[in-house]
């Protein structure tokens, strides 16, 4: 049957279709749903590893034992796994090994944008890139075959717009369970191929370079690359999601659609060049195809037309193609007659038609934008933004609120709690790679910075990259304080289990790690646990830790309310008491609305955590919780 699957769901489905019995990954937007989708198919085994490098090492073991396996992560996760990736390229997998990586051009939810296709040349392995969900599933099978035929790991590259777009494909009506190997497997020992000691590694390097040449030759007529004949004026080279935009903008051009982003088919480029007057490369992020084509002596254009930074879109490709004279401007659509407004404000409809102004009503000026009287036409680009902020009911908020009141210098990390940096909290001051904050705070403390420095890290990030820098503080006699914001789940990416959660990805119970016990085992003797909603206690403990010269750990524990679906009745505002002093607005919670002379709580968005009730100095916000609330 035909179904719409997201790119991520399709890649997960493709792994199952390819008979791949194992999947290992670490969550990261936009890649997360690949492994989640895969884990739902019958007979598969999927695991969330503690980080991407661990995931790839586990995958390597599965492959060495002879089974097909795939590994999932976001682009920056591949940096974490890069050491292991370079290694498995040299030793080569046994069972097919595919690393599915999702890039985030435009940085919708990432700290940088990088082009994973570059890892093809850098680490010397093939990269496949699908352009829609149907290809996502199909290319997985091809990737496994490629991996086994040439004994190399293969990268399956996606991007946000592919991962999160739903496009149709044919899926099986009935799913047949995979049977992962459960019988006793004897390891086929081959140390000369699996230990890259210099004497072996020198040989392996030559083998790897030969493989790349062989795959490049194979790429000339493989099913992943194709020429789509069209007009002879323009030849477009594109892959992935950029191909779709280019198809919209150049309906009549001849296309070389690449499904293998590395290594590249040199003869196909020459063939295309021979068919058309001009070759133009439409590629998002780095000019990889363009540089390769120009090295062949073909005068291709690319980044002189299209931008190097940021995400592409159909209109971006169209605008730049138009400016470069590649296409003609479209005839503007003319509208006939006056617009019809139904159930609107009749005076203003008239004003709009006549081009005049005349703001009837709405002149009260209630502080919420109903001031009226601004006669200029609004500019959509300068409308008040709606940036992401901590969710209503998020237990990170109380910690950041107190840190802000204590004027702490906060070294943040990657996760939901990066939003502690957002106004009005403005409570985080640095952020780097996963787990970096703990190392960075130790560095600043070494120099003698004394303005209440503290590192803040979430539970999943702690298990991912927080353990080595934490033991480093204890070992090197540091003085730093580390707060672990422990909501017992990897929340940012949509609630994936981690070693603190109590169950595995497959739903089996597993031991929960005590972060406090880990800290003590590392040598910290000052370790405290907090309920974030206990304002007085949070204030007392944080002040104590931040002013102490002893290295210390605070675990602020409260389950993510979106995960547990904890929700209570929204409080209401006593208009007699509220004087809009602004205290509750400073906690940065979206449902608290500034009405000029008072605040109001939006009961659709509110989660009923009652933290605004706690902080209100006039008792003007009244709890409606039936469970007695906090305490």
């Amino acid at each position, binding site marked *: 049957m035909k179904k*719409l699957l997201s790119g991520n769901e399709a890649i997960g489905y493709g792994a199952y279709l390819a008979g791949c019995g194992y999947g290992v990954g670490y969550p990261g*937007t936009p890649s997360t749903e690949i492994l989640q989708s895969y884990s739902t198919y019958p007979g598969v085994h999927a695991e969330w590893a503690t980080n991407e490098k661990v995931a790839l090492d586990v995958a390597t073991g599965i492959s060495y034992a002879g089974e097909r396996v795939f590994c999932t992560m976001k682009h920056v996760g591949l940096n974490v796994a890069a050491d292991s990736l370079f290694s498995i390229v040299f030793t080569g997998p046994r069972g097919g090994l595919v690393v599915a990586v999702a890039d985030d051009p435009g940085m*919708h*939810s990432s700290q940088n944008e990088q082009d994973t296709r570059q890892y093809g040349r850098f680490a010397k392995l093939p990269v496949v890139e699908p352009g*829609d969900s149907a290809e996502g599933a199909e290319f997985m099978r091809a990737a496994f075959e490629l991996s086994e035929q040439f004994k190399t790991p293969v990268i399956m590259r996606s991007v946000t*717009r592919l991962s*999160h*777009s*739903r*496009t*149709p494909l044919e899926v099986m009506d009935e799913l047949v369970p995979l049977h992962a190997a459960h019988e006793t497997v004897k390891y086929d020992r081959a140390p000369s191929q699996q230990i890259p000691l210099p004497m072996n590694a020198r040989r392996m390097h030559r083998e790897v370079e030969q493989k790349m040449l062989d795959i490049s030759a194979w790429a000339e007529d493989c099913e992943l690359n194709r020429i789509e004949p069209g007009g002879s004026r323009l030849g477009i080279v594109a892959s992935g*999601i950029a191909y*779709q*935009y280019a*198809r*919209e903008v150049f309906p009549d051009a001849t296309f070389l659609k690449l499904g293998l982003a590395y290594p590249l088919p040199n003869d196909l480029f020459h063939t295309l060049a021979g068919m058309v007057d001009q070759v133009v490369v439409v590629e998002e992020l780095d000019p990889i195809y363009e540089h390769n084509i120009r090295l062949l002596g073909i005068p291709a254009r690319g980044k002189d037309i299209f931008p190097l930074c940021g995400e592409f*879109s*159909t*209109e971006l490709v169209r605008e730049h193609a138009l400016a470069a004279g590649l296409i003609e401007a479209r005839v503007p*659509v*003319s*509208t006939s007659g006056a*617009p019809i*407004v*139904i*159930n*609107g*404000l009749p*005076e*203003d*409809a008239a004003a*709009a*038609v006549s081009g005049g102004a005349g*703001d*009837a009503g*709405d002149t009260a000026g209630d*502080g*919420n*934008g109903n001031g009226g009287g*601004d006669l200029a*036409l*609004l500019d*959509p680009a300068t*409308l*008040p933004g*709606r*940036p*992401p*902020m901590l*969710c209503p009911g998020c237990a990170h908020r109380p910690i950041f609120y107190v840190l802000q009141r204590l004027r702490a210098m906060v070294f943040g990390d990657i996760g939901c709690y990066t939003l502690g940096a957002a*106004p*009005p909290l403005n409570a985080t001051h640095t952020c780097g790679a996963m787990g970096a904050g703990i190392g960075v705070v130790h560095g600043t403390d070494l120099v003698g910075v004394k303005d209440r420095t503290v590192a803040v890290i979430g539970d999943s990030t702690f298990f991912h990259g927080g353990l080595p820098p934490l033991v480093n503080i204890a070992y090197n006699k540091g003085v730093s304080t580390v707060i672990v914001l422990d909501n017992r789940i990897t929340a940012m*990416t949509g609630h994936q289990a981690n070693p603190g959660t109590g169950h595995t990805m497959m739903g089996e119970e597993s031991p929960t790690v005590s972060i406090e016990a880990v800290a003590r085992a590392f040598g910290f003797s000052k370790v405290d646990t907090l309920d974030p909603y206990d304002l007085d206690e949070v204030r007392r403990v944080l002040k104590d830790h931040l002013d102490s010269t002893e290295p210390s750990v605070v675990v602020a524990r409260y389950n993510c309310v979106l995960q547990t679906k904890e929700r209570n009745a929204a409080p209401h505002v006593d208009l007699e008491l509220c004087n809009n002093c602004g205290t509750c*607005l400073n906690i*940065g919670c*979206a449902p608290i*609305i*500034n009405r000029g002379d008072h605040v109001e709580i939006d009961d*659709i*968005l509110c989660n009923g955590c009652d933290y605004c009730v706690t902080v209100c100095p006039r008792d003007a916000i009244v709890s409606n919780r039936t469970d007695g609330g906090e305490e």
Partner: protein
Amino acid sequence: MALEKIDFVLAGVGGQGTILASDILVEVGLEAGYDVKKSEVHGMAQRGGGVESQVRWGEKVYSATVEKGEVDFLLGFEMLEVARWIDFLKPGGDVIVNRYRIPPPPVNMGVAKYPDESEIQRLLLTRAGRLVWVGATDVARELGNAALSGVVLLGVLASDLGMEHDLWLGVIERLVPERFVALNREAFSRGTAIGAEMLV
């Protein structure tokens, strides 16, 4: 005869139900025989941030994302969020907007002003051929659940598109948990009734 392309953008605030509404729109398009693609971006901001879904119906759709100036229908779950998308509407396109405002953080912090309804209307009319204001959240609240506002808006859209209502109701029944089906049917009918009344 080739099917004509129809592009939709649904814009609102996280937690308002734009995703479910766009899922319904996708399935209706498929059942009506279109090639369909849908794009949405998630990750940051589970609740309270701006969210948008883009749905494209056509004989053959390449890009899952819509192009500026080409969108046929703009569905606004929140007044400010729909205003943000006006440049994507094709001249003369339709805008169906929920008369509901959720002031964003800069407004609550007093550093920006939420535009007046009249200002938003004037902006929308720079491109809209038809602008329909709907008290969808009010209707949904009457039905006992504010999250139904998206299905009310879909009801108005169904009337506007002039498509068979049973096609929509069938999809809603498939996608919504069983215990909510009756409520969702009711919300859809309230939307089609508003649409029918307005769009004569």
